[in-house]
């Protein structure tokens, strides 16, 4: 017999999937705005963010209801705790996407050579995010662990982008304003990588009941 608690959990899962879809679309739009200088694409990221904020509140509310009404334990408890945290991660990712979109349009006016490592960072951050979310819905530990390993690459690209932008400013091949926008995008992509890592950590908590953030009980 299906429990009506299952239906509530399914509904939460669907709302989270909607948030993931909006974040993904926002990231694609931000990348498009960066490459093409497409202001309409940037606008899409803003619009998505509004709906994401609504969903964040709805999911918080639904999770509180589930705690109060069903007193979940074990895998249900871990699922709801994971949803609560991922919900927060997604909302923050949407904020970073908006930040990127704001800078992206102005960067598009720069010649392609000045984009540094950003196209690669976009690709890595988008992949990390997609893999982290997919690993949650599919309870795929292998993919979740892969996301954790990718984070160092994104961090490295952020540092090299900053370093190269500073060098180009010093060499007079990049304006200070353009460098600041590029570094802003890189920093926000790096944060999306971090938040995708958080999501992957929640997958491991949900499936294996292990807390690995800050290397918590990785070896337990």
């Amino acid at each position: 017999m299906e429990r009506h608690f299952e239906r509530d959990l399914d509904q939460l899962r669907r709302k989270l999937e909607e948030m993931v879809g909006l974040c993904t679309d926002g990231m694609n739009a931000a990348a498009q705005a960066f490459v093409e200088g497409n202001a309409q694409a940037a606008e899409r990221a803003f619009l998505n963010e509004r709906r994401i904020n609504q969903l964040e509140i709805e999911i918080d509310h639904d999770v509180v209801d589930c705690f109060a009404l069903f007193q979940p334990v074990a895998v249900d408890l871990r699922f709801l705790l994971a949803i609560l945290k991922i919900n927060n991660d997604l909302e923050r990712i949407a904020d970073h996407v908006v930040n990127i979109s704001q800078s992206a349009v102005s960067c598009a006016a720069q010649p392609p050579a000045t984009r540094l490592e950003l196209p690669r960072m976009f690709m890595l951050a988008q992949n990390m995010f997609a893999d982290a979310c997919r690993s949650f819905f599919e309870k795929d530990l292998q993919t979740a662990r892969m996301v954790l390993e990718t984070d160092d690459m994104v961090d490295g690209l952020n540092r090299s982008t900053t370093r190269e932008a500073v060098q180009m400013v010093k060499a007079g091949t990049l304006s200070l304003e353009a460098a600041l926008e590029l570094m802003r995008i890189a920093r926000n992509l790096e944060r999306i990588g971090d938040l995708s890592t958080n999501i992957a950590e929640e997958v491991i908590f949900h499936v294996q009941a292990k807390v690995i953030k800050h290397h918590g009980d990785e070896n337990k």
Partner: protein
Amino acid sequence: MTDSNKTLKLTVRDLNLHYGIKHALQDVSIDIREHRVTAFIGPSGCGKSTFLRTLNRMNDLIDGVKIKGSVKLDGQDIYANGVDTVELRKRVGMIFQKSNPFPKSIYENVAYGPRIHGLKDKATLDALVEKSLRQAAIWDEVKDELHKSALALSGGQQQRLCIARALAVDPEVLLMDEPASALDPLATSKIEELVYELKDRYTIVIVTHNMQQAARVSDDTAFFYMGKLIEFDATERIFTSPKERQTEDYITGRFG
């Protein structure tokens, strides 16, 4: 968290119990630690109450019961020849699902046990009755009507009176068989608080159908299914990340 250094109060090894041809408990081994609350959970008929009753030989009173294995209280086998079951049940008291006060006054209910164990002095009895009622968190409610019939008390008060009655003979272990299942949430909460208070002085083993109650009051939880002990661990572990699939399915309501 589990503190493995705690002294073991009860150690059970390879316990098997048959009711006639029914094999009700199968190879149960468990260590129950002193001054801890241990909860037994599991579906109806899983053997948890039967197992509870083996801990003070209450099953001896049932025809056709055969028990093999060992149950040791402070290292002494309670099923060994020559063990005085009256003395054993004084050391290992029991609280039942349905409160069962004697049809006597509140005072007499508590004084009964110490009296049959030989205590006669009125002043000492008075002090013991007060101490027991205080420990059972019911003194303030009944101190002015100690000679009123115990049957006039509410269900929750009757259950706490039964706890006071059990405490009056100075037990070391308290076995509780669904002590709050017939009580409203307020009375249940008082029993749960009491269990929490009492564990400093006694070792408590509680059978409950209420998962949240097990989670709230116990330090360790044992899950029984079809006469077997499936999993035994710290309560927080059982309710956040049980090792066994059967345990998880039961506590999350996915069973069957």
